[in-house]
Structure formats: structure tokens, C-alpha cells
């Protein structure tokens, strides 16, 4: 079975320090169940995933799209293609990613003066509507699913920032396993269930593994 994954870091993020956290993320473990091609890019927007999906969907038996969080921009003409509103508070990080000061300022002023969250939400709903009518396609909205797991675990460990994370897909290894099982069930039966109660809080002693 040929499977494609589209999305943001929930479909692409691996631990930075593999000595501390050596477990594989759900999307790598999925290789056992088919030939997986992963188009997910950390920090990317739903629009970007949608474009990738439209371009590649027909090559695969099953397509999995993780609908990323809001406040993201796809800028194919700049050195860094995927930017979000954290640029307002962490502009230096983006300058290190290859953007010049004027480009960073363009993003900051965009988010402060031009960005219209209601418009972005409306456009997201239109893309979601399209994706939900596609056959052999599973669309999962991250704000309503894995991001809840992520926030719950972050609070559990007492971390506010995500910059020091050493997790797979922003989740504990146990949560990666649970999510993998729900994806495998969808591949086998066509049924996908997300239930936050299935995602148990990890052992607090594992904190050293997940945060550097």
C-alpha cells in the first residue's frame, strides 16, 4: 500500500537528541504498514499541505493530511518558506533561518496590521470541506486533536515554550504509539477515532528525555 502524509511538524518532527529520546515517531513506525512518502514540513500552513496534496494525491492509495495550526504563511519566494506569528517574539530565530531584517519586518508588520484571523479561518474551512470529500483521504485537524495532546503534555511537564522540545511530533512516545494505532485502524477499516482520553499522561520522570 502506498501512503502519503501531508502536514506540519505533527507529521515531520523528530527528536533533536536521539541519545536522549531514541524512539521513532508515528510516521516512521507507519512504514511497517505500507510504503510511506512524507510531504509534511515543520511550520507549514494548511494551504501548503493542500497544494502538496493536489499535486501528489493520485500517486497514492491512501492520503493522510494533518491540518496544521493557524497563523502561518507560505512564502515560496523567500529563502524560508514557512513562517508563523511567533516571528513577532522570536525574530532572531528567523534571521538565522536566512531571512533578512526587512523580510522579518514584513512578517511582523503583516501579523500586526494586515493579518485577518477570521478570513484565515474561513479559508481553512473551505479547504477542509474540499479535503473531507476526497476518497481514500483522512483529514485530521491538529488544533482539535494532536495539539490538545501536545498542550496537555507540555502543561504536565511544566513547560511553556516549545523551542527546547526533544519529542517526536510534539508528543510523548506513548502518544505517538496511540496515534499510530488509530491511523493503522483507519488504513484497515476506514474508521478513524480520536479520543483524548486514550492519550494517557506520560511519566513525569521522562521529562529529561523530552526537553533539553
Amino acid at each position, binding site marked *: 500500500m502506498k501512503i502519503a502524509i501531508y502536514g506540519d511538524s505533527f507529521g515531520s518532527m523528530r527528536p533533536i537528541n536521539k541519545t536522549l529520546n531514541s524512539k521513532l515517531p508515528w510516521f516512521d513506525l507507519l512504514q511497517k504498514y505500507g510504503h510511506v512518502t512524507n510531504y509534511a514540513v515543520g511550520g507549514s500552513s494548511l494551504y501548503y499541505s493542500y497544494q502538496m496534496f493536489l499535486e501528489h494525491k493520485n500517486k497514492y492509495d491512501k492520503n493522510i493530511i494533518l491540518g496544521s495550526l493557524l497563523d502561518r*504563511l*507560505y512564502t515560496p519566494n523567500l529563502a524560508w518558506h514557512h513562517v508563523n506569528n511567533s516571528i513577532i517574539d522570536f525574530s532572531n530565530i528567523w534571521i538565522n533561518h536566512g531571512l533578512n531584517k526587512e*523580510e522579518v519586518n*514584513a*512578517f511582523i*508588520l*503583516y501579523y500586526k*496590521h*494586515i493579518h485577518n484571523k477570521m478570513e484565515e479561518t*474561513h479559508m481553512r474551512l473551505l479547504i477542509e470541506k474540499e479535503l473531507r470529500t476526497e476518497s481514500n483521504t483522512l483529514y485530521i485537524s491538529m488544533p482539535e486533536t494532536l495539539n490538545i495532546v501536545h498542550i496537555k503534555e507540555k502543561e504536565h511537564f511544566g513547560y511553556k515554550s516549545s523551542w527546547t522540545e526533544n519529542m517526536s511530533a510534539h508528543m510523548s512516545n506513548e502518544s505517538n504509539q496511540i496515534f499510530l494505532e488509530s491511523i493503522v485502524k483507519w488504513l484497515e477499516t476506514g474508521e478513524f477515532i480520536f479520543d483524548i482520553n486514550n492519550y494517557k499522561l506520560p511519566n513525569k520522570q521522562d521529562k529529561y528525555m523530552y526537553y533539553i
Partner: protein
Amino acid sequence: MAGIKIAIYGDSFAHLIAPNLIINNDGTPWFQLVSDAVGGVANYAMSSSSFYYSYMNFKKNYINYDKHIFLGTFPGRRYIPIGATKNEIHAHIFHSRPEFKDHPDFGNKINQALSLYYGYLYNEEEDETYLKLMEKDILTHSNVLYLNLEKTLQLIYHRDKLYFDVDGQTEGQHENMHCHLTNESNKVLAEEVIQWLQTDKFNFDLHKYPLPNISSRGKYWLK
């Protein structure tokens, strides 16, 4: 048609009134002609507004009207709900020009933000994708007359401008038409819309809109 509630959405093609009514004194905008003929028309159109602005109003007001007339405008426009003076802003690429630096709405940081946005961040392909998705959603409703401006009224406007030999660079700011159309074209459009309200049939045909009389140039393009 008595009692039918009608809503109009769009940009200047459904909103603009000739600025000098002493010179252009024998015509009426098409939306007014429709309202005069059938009554019960609410016009949500706003000059310079984006496709999204119209779509937002369409979604918000859809349930309150029996028939909707939606003029789908061009990509590249941004709707900013709260601008520098707390007014809503309908921004175009030309608002990023330096002459808007001290404008009450576009001045301050907005002009700089727009200049950098259109210079570095604007993604035309993404904008067009959203426009097509909104268009698709609008077309699922059978009680909507949808006109893609690029394929309809804009053709009349360009044809007439060419016919009048208008120099867009020097004369562009001196237009004195209702909804960018001659008075005759406004009349034809109103008749076509009224026919749609009665029969649900509308076929845009450029040839139905008469070429203006060359002697009327001074009425529509001010010196």
C-alpha cells in the same frame, strides 16, 4: 416579485456612483435601477473591497434574503477589519505607494506593512486558490446570480476605455461613470438582472452592451 428580498455583494462595479453628477446627469447605477424596479434590495457592495469581504457578507446575510447577486472581484485585495483610525480598510497594492504614507487610514504603519507585504509576502497563487474555493461555494447555491467580473463587466469597461482611447496612466483618476459602466450599459445590466430575478436565466453577452457614443466621452472621463 413583490416581497422578494434581494442582496447585492461586490466592489465598485456594484457601488461606485459617478463623482460629478452635474456632468453625468442622465444616468442611474444599475443597482439603483434594480432597486427602483423590484424594491427590497440591500446593497453590501463596497468600492475597492476584496472577494473575501463580499464572501463574508454573503455568508453572514445569506439566510436573510431570497436572491443574491454576487460580483466576484479580482485577487490581490486585502480586507483589514480595524485600520489605523479604527475604520475597516480595503487595501490594494497601490495603497503601498509612498503617497499614502500620511493617509489617515493607510498611513502610519499600515502603508509600510502593505508595502512590505506586497513586496515580499503576497502569494498570488494562494490568493487565487482561495478565490476559486469561495467561488465554488457560492455556486452551490441556486438562488445566486454570480458574475465573475474578469469575464463579464470588466470586459465592457476595458472595451469602452479602449473605444474612448482613455490613457489609463494620466486619465485613470478622472473617471465619472456609475459602476465603471456607461449609462446605457448600466441600463442593460439592470434589465438583465431583473430578468434573472423573474426567470432565473442570465447569459452574459458583451454584444448586448452598446458601444457608447464617442461624443459622450467628456461626460465619463473628466478633463
